[in-house]
């Protein structure tokens, strides 16, 4: 861990590299950071909002789902990038010593920049729909942190497993899609029966999304209490177990990758 601190500048440079390189040689460049959640929102609004008439706690459906899509996009991108980070940088792993954890960490952090860009769109939409954020907007960074902790925990597992089993490359997209459905993005948490809520909160991202809506849109009266606690505990458990697994496998990376 001390090593990680000594190499903190490398985390910065690798993140910076991932950010710089991500949209190189693309026609639309960084607008992809906006387009991805935006287009998803349009599709969701048409099919779930207009056609299926999914309720949205009295908030206009587009902004309701977009608020959830922001942390979700961050999470989903982080997972896919992190899971591939070690394998993609094989030549670094097999030739130079540095704390290997830097690779998944920086690939996750690079997504934060996209998140911030897309956040500007959210602000624009809030102005458009004349929604004032609640006084709890200061809790947003906490939810953001929870997103990153979850992403890192799962990312550590997937990246280390990917070194041994390339199945992970195929599992990750499927996992992400499945995860999208068990997270309240296209529908409100209030659709989940009360007695199942705590089980539902075992998915840390449901706590994150719920918190985001609560802090920004004020769609419910009470703060997300028990659900958020369950989500946070799970996220931390995943992170710690991921750290241990990663550390245990680390010694073999150079030989196995």
């Amino acid at each position: 861990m001390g090593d990680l601190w000594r190499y903190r500048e490398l985390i910065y440079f690798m993140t910076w590299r991932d950010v710089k390189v991500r949209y190189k040689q693309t026609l639309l460049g960084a607008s992809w950071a906006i387009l991805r959640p935006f287009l998803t929102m349009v599709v969701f609004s048409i099919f779930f909002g207009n056609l299926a008439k999914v309720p949205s706690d009295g908030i206009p459906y587009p902004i309701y789902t977009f608020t959830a899509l922001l942390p979700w996009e961050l999470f989903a991108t982080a997972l896919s990038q992190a899971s591939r980070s070690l394998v993609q940088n094989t030549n670094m792993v097999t030739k130079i010593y540095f704390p290997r954890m830097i690779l998944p960490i920086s690939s996750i952090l690079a997504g934060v920049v996209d998140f911030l860009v897309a956040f500007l769109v959210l602000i624009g939409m809030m102005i458009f729909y004349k929604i004032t954020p609640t006084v709890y907007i200061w809790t947003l960074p906490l939810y953001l942190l929870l997103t990153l902790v979850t992403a890192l925990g799962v990312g550590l597992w997937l990246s280390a497993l990917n070194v041994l089993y390339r199945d992970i490359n195929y599992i990750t997209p499927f996992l992400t899609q499945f995860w999208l459905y068990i997270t309240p993005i296209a529908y409100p948490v209030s659709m989940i029966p009360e007695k199942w809520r705590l089980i539902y909160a075992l998915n840390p991202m449901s706590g994150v999304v719920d918190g985001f809506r609560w802090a920004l849109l004020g769609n419910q009266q009470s703060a997300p209490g028990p659900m958020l606690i369950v989500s946070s505990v799970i996220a931390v458990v995943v992170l710690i177990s991921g750290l241990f697994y990663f550390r245990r496998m680390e010694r073999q990376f150079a030989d196995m990758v």
Partner: protein
Amino acid sequence: MSDTVIRVENLGKRYHIGTAVAAYQTLRETLGGSFQKVKEKKTLSDTGDNYIWALRDLNFEVKQGQVLGIIGRNGAGKSTLLKILSRVTYPTEGIAEIQGRVGSLLEVGTGFHPELTGRENIFLNGAILGMKRTEIEKKFDEIVEFSEVEKFIDTPVKRYSSGMYLRLAFAVAAHLEPEILVVDEVLAVGDAEFQRKCLGKMSNVAQQGRTVLFVSHNMSAVLRLTQESLVIEKGRLALRAPTAEAVDYYLSRGYSLEGQRIWQPDEIPEDAAPFQPVSLKVLNTAGIIVDTVRSIEPAIVEMEYMLHAPVTGLRVGMYLISSRGEFVFTSFDTDDPGLFEKFSTRQPGRYISRCVIPADTLNEGRYIIGINASSYKIKRYFQDEQALTFNVDAAGAPGMQWPEPRLGSYRPRLDWEIKRV
């Protein structure tokens, strides 16, 4: 002892044979792998059939400020050793203790990103090699100057020529200031002028009292830069001696079977097909295989090989390399345009390519013959840079009335004229 910076004890590193198969096992194999399979694997590993020791029973120490050469054939385990010392991989058994920051030049340019500019890559690569940002900023101009790519520093490196790319990469690595510098075969980079610069840079590092481990196939570079060397053979330490002695031992070892080299099937890489080397011989004028030829007599070099499919544009030839690692000459069997036309496509079969090294050509000493079989710009089928060694005896050669060693690899009999004017 406090001035010991590297201590290696009973070091061993074991790899799976066919790592690729072992590494890319799929989940199904692990999760659903039948009991039978698990059992099978276990018995295999018990008998040791499934593993290969890349390094075994290695013991040595390196003191602060020492410049140590490491020499050995390809696959002897040198790179594995360097990887362990630079903490890229871990030993299977034994200890490798290293004190201080290790800077490795295992391969220059690692972490370079083609889309980033030269400037950006200097910072990125510097950080990957363990430099601080302030350190890189301080040395930035020096690095750029050393690399000779000033004009293109803000161009993405994917537009660089391969030479520029390597020069920039080496420049970053060369400005690292680690306590222990590990260098592996970087001198194959760039033109002669740049190589000279690199060697200069490295001897500077050595003079500053830092420890350097230097791996190279360039014997003259090893001789120039190091006083002491390790010779590694099949994963074991064969010899630790002053470099001159170590180089001599290394060159005399194993390659020459009394003037001929015969390739066993397992020595031939799979991608050599359809070319299959059979043997390489050095013969005297009487047609007898010898390991020592006379400078004043012609020597015959004979390469025998099989072709398993028709090959177009094939050239089979030799490098002659001096014991200091310098190339004396390169020559191919189809150098002559007439022969090249005649053998534009060689049909499958058994071939012998032979040539005569004329009398009064080589100076006394030990020489290495390297073999290359390739089709120009199409494929290099086979290459062995140390196929065979032989000696040249200078008895009777010009100038033998003075029993002193003569400089140079060439010992021609020139027609001198002396006039009083």
